[in-house]
């Protein structure tokens, strides 16, 4: 029995050993802690960071909690990464205030912190690489108004009501409508957790309740995929506007099921983090904020190389 136990233990140890990547001590190591890793968006940020890291010959790692609710898991990740005494650190805070004690520790150890995505409410990060989500959602609102003839009923399917991106995209859209398109009426704002299936059900319910609906805005990739499915299942025809990219969304735009979407520049965000960190290590002065940009894309420019480079499948 004991032998079998020992064998199993050895097997596990060997399996672990195989998975380890040996790191050299003299390499510049920069861990990036994001808000997630499973969504295609974060994978694109990771790709951008990896490409930039290779260019500047530094070593990075990229981690994030399984859901954007897991604030404590993200803090554990930050804590484990600080124990490795990295040269610099990239951080997309789920909750800025919760991370302050650890960020202070990084500051005390003179580890430069680069914030990305929604940023960190504090003076500690040297710069923030992010999209201006409020301005981007306002563009989505303008396009929506234009496509429905500047009047009628519109609904929103948003990923959540607690995260910075959820709040900014919702408010950016709502405020722009209120200020510039008074005849457009927002009849419903619902939250689907970025889950495709939940967002589908929500969309169907909205369509059921509002037969005169002219358009729906889905505020992230998961939400808009749900909206597309919900509209299809309800066999309705209306103006659908999305956010980010992903294969399904790009195809919907090409086929005309979706009018268009806002894309951020996730690869640019990843590259910006690594580039800023390396600059900080050289002692360069960094701007307080780097707007990594956003673009409106639709059927007409989805294949344009400039746009295609920002989209991920």
């Amino acid at each position, binding site marked *: 029995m004991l032998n079998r*136990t020992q064998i199993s233990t050895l097997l596990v140890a060997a399996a*672990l050993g195989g998975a380890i*990547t040996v790191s050299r001590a003299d390499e510049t190591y920069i861990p990036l802690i994001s808000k997630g890793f499973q969504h295609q968006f974060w994978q694109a940020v990771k790709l951008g960071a990896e490409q930039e890291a290779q260019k500047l010959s530094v070593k990075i790692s990229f981690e994030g909690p399984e859901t*954007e609710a897991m604030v404590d898991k993200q803090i554990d990740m930050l*804590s*484990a990464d600080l*124990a490795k005494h990295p040269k610099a650190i990239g951080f997309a805070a789920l909750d800025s205030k919760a991370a302050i004690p650890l960020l202070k520790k990084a500051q005390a150890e003179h580890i430069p912190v680069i914030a990305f995505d929604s940023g960190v409410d504090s003076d500690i990060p040297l710069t923030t690489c992010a999209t201006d989500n409020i301005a981007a959602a306002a563009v989505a609102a303008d396009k929506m108004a234009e496509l429905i003839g500047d009047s009628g009923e519109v609904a929103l399917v948003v990923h959540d009501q*607690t995260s910075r991106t959820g709040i900014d995209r919702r408010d950016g859209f709502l405020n722009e409508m209120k200020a510039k398109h008074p005849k457009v009426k927002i009849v419903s704002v619902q939250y689907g957790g970025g889950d495709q299936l939940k967002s589908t059900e929500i969309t169907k319910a909205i369509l059921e309740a509002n037969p005169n609906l002219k358009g729906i805005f889905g505020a992230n990739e998961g939400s808009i995929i749900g909206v597309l499915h919900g509209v299809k299942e309800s066999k309705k025809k209306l103006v659908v506007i999305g956010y980010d990219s992903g294969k399904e969304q790009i195809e919907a735009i090409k086929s005309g099921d979706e009018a268009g979407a806002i894309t951020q520049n996730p690869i640019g965000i990843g590259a910006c983090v690594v580039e800023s960190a390396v600059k900080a290590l050289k002692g360069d002065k960094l701007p307080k904020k780097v707007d990594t940009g956003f673009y409106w894309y639709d059927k007409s420019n989805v294949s344009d190389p400039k746009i295609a480079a920002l989209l991920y499948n």
Partner: protein
Amino acid sequence: MAEPKTATIEAEERVATTFRAQVFGSIARQKLFAFASLIVLMVFFGFASPAFMQVENLLGILQSTAVNGVLAIASTFVIITAGIDLSVGTLMTFCAVMAGVFLTNWQLPLWTGVLAAIATGAMSGLLSGTFVAKLKLPPFIATLGMMLVNKGLALVVAGDKPIYFSDSENFSTISQGSMIGYVLPSLPVPNSVLILFVLAIAASAVLSRTALGRYTFALGSNEEAVRLSGVNVDRWKITIYVLAGAICGVAGLLIASRLNSAQPALGQGYELEAIAAVVIGGTSLSGGTGTVLGTIIGAFIMSVLTNGLRILSVPQEWQIVVTGVIIILAVYIDILRRRKL
């Protein structure tokens, strides 16, 4: 109390005998085994990376175990009765949010707020326990329902956004301060860890030295026999769920104090991590056996694994796979060992 006296004594004696056998027999060995696995893991990670064995990182591991450890203690009680509590994670969150309401919105004194948050947990446990004992709902369903109720209530009460504890200055010291560090400055073990250990010792004492503990085991071994010996089964069962709920309240305070905020969207999924810790620690899901010490070791195995893989920069996707494999392996080895006994 109309219990026939002799029957009660007999039942208690029977329970005590089986309990003694468990302590000196399989359970003791299980604990040794779990402890050995923990040491093997730590030695492995220690050799694999110099960063792992640093005091700072070990303190980080201790701190990251505190919340899951406390939730796992709550789960241990329920699982020993052959029940399951799926509501521990979101109940923790709801208690954290209520602590925010008591301390930040109502400006209650710190200790009143703390006790009220624990009472919130106990109240929710009272509901779960009543559903299980009186309405005869299967524990899985009753606590699944309560998991969703707590999750929703946390969002409603908090108004969908975090509640911060910036007004009550001492609140963060519940988790982040260090009483041990005050005595031994070189070893600033966070209070959350101290609370975990104190709670573990208390829970262990309840399980092994009180009537409640004896009935917890007895209900898991043979509920019908306990009922037939004239014991008020429903009352003890409800008490166990109330206790588990109150312990979730403590977890809620720990997480809120660590994050200095009550995060209303957190908590789902934490019940499964707690159950994993309990099972790795040798408590059987079919009830009747288990120890708090085993559970604590199980919780540490989970967090050492998470931290170690992270320190080694194992890609995150593989971290998840390895954690799953270890859980299956740990429980399988336990089953093999039991068969040999």
